[in-house]
Every structure is written in C-alpha cells, then in structure tokens.
C-alpha cells in the first residue's frame, strides 16, 4: 500500500480557514478521548496539562486547538499564540500517524514545523513514538490493531 502524493489545492485551505475552527476541535478531542485514552492516559501527559496545543493542517487550512487536563483532552478556541503549534500537510500527518515516516526527516525537509515550546513538542513527538502501536492504527476497527508493514513507502516521497 502506498499513499498517493497529493496536496490539497490552495483554494481549499483558503476556504476552510474561513470556517469556525472550534467544531473541528470538539470532534478532534472526542476522537482522541474515545480512541487514544486506552493507550495514552491524559494523566500521563503531565507536561501538557494546562497548555494549549494547535495542530495546523496546512493544505486544508484547518486547525485543531485543544488542551489536556488530568482526565481528558479538551477543545479550545483559537488563541493568537498557543503554547505549541505543530504544522504539516494532511498527507504528512497521515504518514507520521501510520509510522511510515520519521518526524525528524519531515522536519529537515521543512514539511513539519513546530513553533512555541520546543520541549513540549519533543515530549509530544516522543510520547507518540513510544506508543506500542502507531497512532493511526489505534483508530482502525477490530479487536487487535494491526501493524501496517509496507516497504513501498520507502520510495513514496
């Protein structure tokens, strides 16, 4: 399996960026709380407690603003300077989530940027890397999440 090499066209980002971002964030944290919490307990994310994080999907213009409390991920309204902003195109977030691509490689290539509290960003990156199964496998249906192993991806980007 191989991800197609697509980027959303610029008008998509312009259009979606005009929409309110809060509903996305509510949906996003809902998914996080439902799926991720079995593998990653909010109370283990102590350095993130009370911090505002922004995930910015560059080519779609969509931003997810959220914070973490000791019990849950919580949607937040956009603020001018979140504590941590992680930006990439949708496809690159997918590649990271599937563990098909290395975060530092994307960072060297300028496909992934991290602004704000760098230590917080490294904590997020390293915590996700340390999960037993890739983040996006967690969201796959079925009793047992399955590792996707496909070496074609080595030639995909």
């Amino acid at each position, binding site marked *: 399996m191989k991800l197609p090499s697509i980027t959303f066209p610029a008008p998509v980002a312009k259009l979606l960026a005009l929409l309110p971002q809060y509903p996305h964030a509510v949906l996003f944290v809902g998914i996080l709380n439902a799926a991720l919490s079995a593998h990653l307990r909010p109370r283990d994310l102590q350095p993130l407690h009370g911090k505002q994080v922004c995930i910015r999907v560059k080519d779609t213009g969509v931003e997810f603003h959220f914070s973490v409390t000791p019990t849950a991920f919580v949607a937040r309204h956009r603020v001018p300077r979140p504590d941590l902003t992680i930006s990439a195109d949708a496809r690159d977030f997918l590649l990271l989530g599937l563990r098909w691509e*290395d975060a530092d490689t994307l960072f*060297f290539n300028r496909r992934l940027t991290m602004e704000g509290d*760098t230590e917080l960003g490294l904590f997020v990156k390293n915590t996700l890397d340390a999960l037993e199964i890739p983040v996006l496998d967690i969201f796959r249906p079925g009793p047992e999440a399955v590792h996707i192993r496909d070496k074609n991806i080595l030639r995909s980007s």
Partner: protein
Amino acid sequence: MSPDASMELVCPAGNLPALKAAVDNGADCVYIGFRDGTNARNFAGLNFDAAAAREGLRYAHAQGAKVLLALNTYPQAENWQRWQGALDQAAALGVDAVILADVGLMDYASKTYPGLRLHLSVQGSATNYEAINFFYERFGIRRAVLPRVLALAQVEQVVNHTPVEIELFGFGGLCVMVEGRCALSSYVTGESPNTCGVCSPAKAVRWQQTPQGLESRLNGVLLDRYEDGENAGYPTLCKGRFEVNGDTYYAIEEPASLNAMECLPEMLRMGIKAIKIEGRQRSPAYVAQVTQAWRQAIDACRRAPHDFKVDAAWSESLSKVAEGRQHTLGAYHRPWK
C-alpha cells in the same frame, strides 16, 4: 579475512517500538538509555524506564539480539548517586553491556560488577591505542567506540595494537566531533552535553516563522534562518550560520550525515567488530529503514567482500532520512593521510 569474521550491527532505540523495529529488521545489538541525564540523548519523553527496558531486553533476547545501555555522560560531585544508581539498575536488569565514558563510573562498575561487560563510549574520547589499552588494563573493557576523527588508516593502527574490540560509527548525524569534550552549548545555555546529556536543551530552543524565514534560536541567540524550502538542521550551535568578517556561513560545521557504507569491505578486512548507527532521538520509522539497509549491506559484504557494491536502494533510503540530506565519509577518507 577469516570466513567466520563477524561484524555486529548496533542500532539506536529511544523507545520500545524503535527497539522492536531494530530487532525485527536485523540489528545484532540495540543501544538504549534511561530517562534522565545519565545518557547523551536526554530529551523529554524519550528513553526507557525500568519496565520498558525489561520488556525491551525480553524482546531482544527472545530473538537473539543484545541490549546495550548507554551511561555515557559525566557525573558531577553533587549528583554521583544518580549515575551509580543507573549502573546498579542496569546490572540488575541484566543488560548485555554498559557503554561508559567516565573513569569513576568505570572504576565503580568494574569493582562492583566484575561480570558486567564494559564498552568505552565515544564520549570517552579515546582516539589512540594507548588510551584504549589503559581502560582495558585498569577496568577490563571489552569494546571501544572510536570518535569520528580518525582516518581508516589510523583506525587500523588502533585495531592492530589493542585486544579490545573496536566499534565504528557507520551512519548518522555528525557534529564537530570533539566527543566527550564539547562544551559549546554551555556558553549559551549553561548546560554542557557531557554533564546534562543534550547538546541543545529543548527548553532553550525556539523555532519561529518570520518574514525573513524560519528562525532557530538557542536561549535567544539566533542560530540560523532558513529560507522557504531550504532544508533545516538540528538547532545546535555547531551547525549554526554566523556572520564572520562580513560573511554569513556555517562557521563551525555544515549539517551533514556520515554514511560509511562504501567502507564496509575495508572495515571488515581490518577486523572492526561492530558498526554503530546514530540516532536514539529518531523515530521507529527511521530505525526500521536504516537498520534494514545496513543489515542487507553487512550481509552482502560478508558474503562477497571483494564484489561489494552499495546498492542504490540502500543509498536512497539512507539519503532520505539524513540530516542536511548530504552524506560524507567524514574523517574516514583523508587522501592526504
């Protein structure tokens, strides 16, 4: 070369999935560190607590791989207990070897745990056989990791004059290569890599997009400014671009990765016992890709050293993940040597 010549592939792991990726893709040894400044990759959320290390050892041993533990920073008088505790924990866990740099810790290890295999870390800065033999005679080290400053002809001199196994770096990010002696970041942050376990403490690093480009700063000091589309590097002082006499350039070191794969036949011939891959800070995806390429290369070289050629697919997968996206043989190749 004898037909049974062995050469171990030693791969990095910053977490359990990376360790498993290394083992699954053919690493002979995986090196790890604890979650504190007792090793030189002390980043938030990275590394192993006792439970993860125990599971990593179980997984690796079940597949015939070894786990080495890096305790390769230098304790100070006020925090000696932490390093001593880490060494006690490593011995209790049953790691296959500890990788040490500090002489005091080496002394404690050799006296307290005479059965524990000791490796001299690259951070120990031993670049000649007299230094390595000193560690052998005093502490019984079994292996030394050579700093990346020697040409291959010099490496061979070392190999020929010591009973200690020699491990060489094969791949990964390069720095200014004064391992164990670099204090550069302490001038800006007050923390040196050898005592605090990190070149640029993340708490002092800031990335900011500005109209002039993407800026990296360390404790407020501008390290670099990248134009759109220009490759970025790690935010360390040694890889920054600075204005010197009116010119702005990499005044200390240009970001680059070592890739010594083409030297494999030569390294095998001279009796190098292990090839080390840099990158405990990297993700499981990196570990899997790099381990796979090097496993295939070492196997191919052992089968037919005289016909060994670097496969284009190996080079491509290694280039993709390299810092600076450029490869160098580093000091290994010095025509003038």
